[in-house]
């Protein structure tokens, strides 16, 4: 009996001990957040070139500059490792001046050689400003160290107006840690690779052959120039501690940052409800859960612009969606407000119409021109006229194909996207009410969905669009590779529907306009020409409806005022940046008495 009592007491003490001290996040000087960009993998290297790498942009990993959330201009930035920069009007030459006080966490200064090495490493990964192919639009032709704190990057002959953006987005790593990954003759090889002939091909292969080595490299410890450095990581959390050498240390309030892993939105909701997080990235939240999150003391919601929209896209080679009248009829029957209310009431606003652009950007690009476009307000009578114009027939209250066979609208969505599934169900319900037999079909996961979409297996499916702020990026989603236009080595080609990922299958020329060519032109056009092209593409998209724009996403973030203050206000142009950048900019301060 005495033994039993002893065991019971021990168990009680253990339980009390185990249950005590929960909520370490509330420790003074600790900032707790979640990195929405990736799940934590404790086995991944501390390497920003590794997609799963244990580096956290804005906290330890630094880019030259941080993009502002501007609805129109993609070339507006806040300083990062670069204190300032100058650019020629044609973006042919970018001169970067580094922060004079920038140091790595091991105390060594950040120099131009670090930037040059980082650019060299970026070349091994290919793409954007650092494409090895000299014909690729917007690729750098030369990287020159001007002095210890100044670097000049020159654009090649095939110009892109995104060159500055892509250069300033370069992640900077220390040459004394990563430099050995580049062979001694790297820059000579790169020069050879930018030529022509077999020697150039061999040199290209040598450079791209370094990609795996660069991705796999695992430094023994984190040497960063950001406000924090990674102290340790386990599969559930990462701990970053203050970098005493950070150039703007006076701006940084927390001593430590805890990044929590998450495997699903439910965990973020739980963390928010329990008041554990100081800030959380955008997460889809049902209304009831949002209410509970708001009820937790200190929790606040900050909303801002997010250049992303969701649409219903058509396989335009598949009948009857090859007929523009059918697509228009569907646009007249879908109540976008109702769909948004059901699918994304907190993080979406109904699309005003289909332009291909997020409403906020569209206002800036098109101005009053939006009013001249068809708004596609719900109008069953117009829809019926459009369907009749397409030769569709109505039998027993149900619309049928022109040859009299039943018309069944199958809307495909990935099962894991709850707002898309809800939106698809709302749409099918609306279509059924108007005599169109519609069903929702789900793909097991997003990877499978994309594969089947690209293979042209779907008549109608959901598609992310309006990915701004660059107008090229926006229209590339509609008139890019998914619709047959491919830009390889600066050469634009159009491949037939059903091949090489062309699942949208729209015509190459519509009313004398080649939308893919215009989209590609957006890359190099000056602002006036861009405006004209965007106007043309918005009108064409509105008339032809390769997609029906359903709702524009709203960047909905959560912050807690319990421990920190100075959060970005609603619609701030830093809202899409990590909280580490907010700290760098001096925005977050410890709450008095916390």
């Amino acid at each position, binding site marked *: 009996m005495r033994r039993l009592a002893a065991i019971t007491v021990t168990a009680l003490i*253990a339980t009390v001990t*185990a*249950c*005590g001290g*929960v*909520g*370490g996040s509330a420790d003074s000087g*600790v900032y707790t957040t979640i990195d*929405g*960009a990736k*799940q934590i*993998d*404790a*086995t*991944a*290297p501390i390497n920003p*070139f*590794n*997609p*799963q790498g244990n580096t956290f942009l804005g906290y330890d990993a630094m880019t030259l500059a941080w993009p502002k959330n501007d609805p129109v201009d993609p070339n507006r930035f806040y300083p990062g490792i670069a204190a300032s920069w100058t650019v020629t009007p044609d973006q042919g030459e970018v001169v970067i001046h580094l922060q004079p006080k920038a140091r790595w966490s091991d105390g060594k200064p950040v120099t131009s050689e670090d930037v040059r090495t980082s650019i060299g490493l970026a070349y*091994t*990964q*290919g*793409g*954007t400003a650092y494409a090895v192919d000299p014909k690729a639009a917007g690729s750098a032709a030369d990287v020159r160290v001007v002095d210890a704190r100044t670097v000049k990057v020159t654009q090649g002959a095939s110009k892109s107006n*995104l060159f500055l953006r*892509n250069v300033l987005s370069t992640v900077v790593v220390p040459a004394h840690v990563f430099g050995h990954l580049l062979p001694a003759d790297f820059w000579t090889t790169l020069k050879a690779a930018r030529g022509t002939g077999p020697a150039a091909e061999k040199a290209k292969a040598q450079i791209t052959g370094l*990609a*795996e080595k660069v*991705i*796999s*490299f695992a430094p023994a410890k984190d040497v960063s120039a950001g406000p924090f450095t990674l102290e340790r990581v*386990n*599969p*559930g*959390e*990462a*701990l970053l501690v203050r970098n005493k050498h950070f150039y703007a240390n006076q701006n940084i309030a927390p001593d430590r940052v*805890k990044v*929590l*892993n*998450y*495997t699903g939105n439910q*965990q973020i909701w*739980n*963390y928010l409800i*329990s008041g*554990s997080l100081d800030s959380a990235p955008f997460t889809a939240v049902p209304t009831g859960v949002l209410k509970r999150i708001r009820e937790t003391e200190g929790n606040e919601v900050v909303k801002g612009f997010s*250049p*992303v929209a969701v649409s219903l896209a058509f396989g335009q080679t598949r009948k009857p969606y090859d007929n523009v009248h059918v697509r228009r009829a569907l646009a007249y029957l879908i109540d976008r407000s109702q769909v948004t209310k059901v699918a994304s009431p907190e993080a979406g606003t109904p699309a005003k119409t289909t332009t291909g652009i997020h409403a906020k950007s569209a206002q800036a690009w098109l101005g009053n021109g939006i009013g001249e476009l068809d708004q596609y307000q719900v109008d069953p009578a117009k829809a019926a006229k459009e369907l009749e114009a397409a030769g569709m027939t109505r039998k027993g209250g149900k619309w049928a194909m022109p040859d009299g066979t039943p018309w069944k609208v199958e809307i495909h969505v990935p099962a894991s996207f709850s707002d898309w599934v809800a939106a698809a169900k709302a749409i099918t319900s609306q279509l059924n009410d108007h005599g169109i037999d519609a069903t929702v079909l789900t793909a097991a*996961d*997003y*990877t499978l969905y*994309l*594969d*089947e979409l*690209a293979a042209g297996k779907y008549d109608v499916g959901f598609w*992310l669009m309006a*990915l701004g702020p660059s107008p090229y990026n926006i229209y590339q989603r509609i008139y890019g590779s998914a619709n047959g236009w491919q830009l390889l080595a600066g050469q634009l080609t159009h491949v037939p529907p059903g091949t090489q990922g062309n699942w949208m299958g729209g015509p190459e020329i519509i009313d004398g306009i080649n939308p893919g060519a215009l989209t590609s032109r957006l890359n190099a056009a000056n602002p006036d020409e861009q405006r004209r092209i965007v106007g043309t593409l918005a009108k064409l998209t509105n008339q032809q409806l390769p997609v029906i724009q359903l709702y524009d996403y709203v960047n909905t973030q959560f912050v807690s005022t319990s421990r920190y203050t100075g959060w970005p206000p609603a619609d701030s142009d830093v809202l*899409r940046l990590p909280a580490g950048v907010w700290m760098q900019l001096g925005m977050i301060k410890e709450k008095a008495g916390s």
Partner: protein
Amino acid sequence: MNTVIRRLTGHLARGIAMIWVVTTISFVIIRNIPGDPVRGQYEKLIEQGMGPDQAERATAALYGFLPTGSLWDQYTGYLNGLIHGDLGQSLSTPGTGVATLIGSAAKWTVLPVLGGTLLSFLLGVTLGVYAAIKRSGKLGDALAISGSLLHGVPQYVIGLLVTAIFTTLWPILPAGGPVDISFEPGFNAAYIVSLVQHATLPVLTYALASYGGWILAMKSSVATVLGDDFILAAELRGLKRSVLFRYIARNAILPLFTILALSLGMLFGGAIFIETIFNYPGLGLLLVNSIGARDYALMGGTFLVITVAIVVANIAADLLYAVIDPRVRTGGAA
């Protein structure tokens, strides 16, 4: 002794053949799962707000980690790697070996699943005996009903329920993760307490979810044994209750022993729902993520570990069964 060695050799030969068959079948299935992992990763980045060019750059190098060559070449290369202890390179964590990832996840699976299995087994078996002996009383009924109820509730419901209770309504335990990163890893009180705190809800969920099965099985088994002639004979011979209880328990537990051994083998399959709910980075979560990312090497490696664990558990159960049940050892002559 020769018999044991002969049995063991036979088991091992069959086990290796089984592992090869399962490995081959899973290899073919995995390589034929539709979905382009690089496109999936690209769209994931787009969804997170990355520009198309940037996303393209971030994913282009992943092509180097995809398997190349004919299916046969890939298969022979895979088998050759396995023979040399190489499970390949992960695509979702490029540059990291599959064995490293599995090793890292395995330790987080063992704690909640093993803890939960043993806890539920001990509780279920002990209370199952009482439920059978007192089956006509209120206690027996209550125990049987608790078993039936918990047996019918899915793991994820129990998980969500205990999360709501212990992290929101009465917030005394952490909502997720394996351990608080603030504490220095090692054999120190703060770290161990944190480990226990974080493991409590996953273990509790697993134990509650499995407890019903054990109690019902044990109750049924004991009830069967209670009707056997040898129990009647023992009672008539006036044996002490403790001796009688041992007779009952030892005979009734035999069928459960096999289930326990297989459960321990299944342990390496992880507990997907529990790991997901509690953000516990075990093998189940690793497998699910690898399927989502179409990480062929990681999927193959995880399936292999699960297969080997089950085969080994089967062999162990078979051999140990002979130890605890003399009838098996002597071909039923005892």
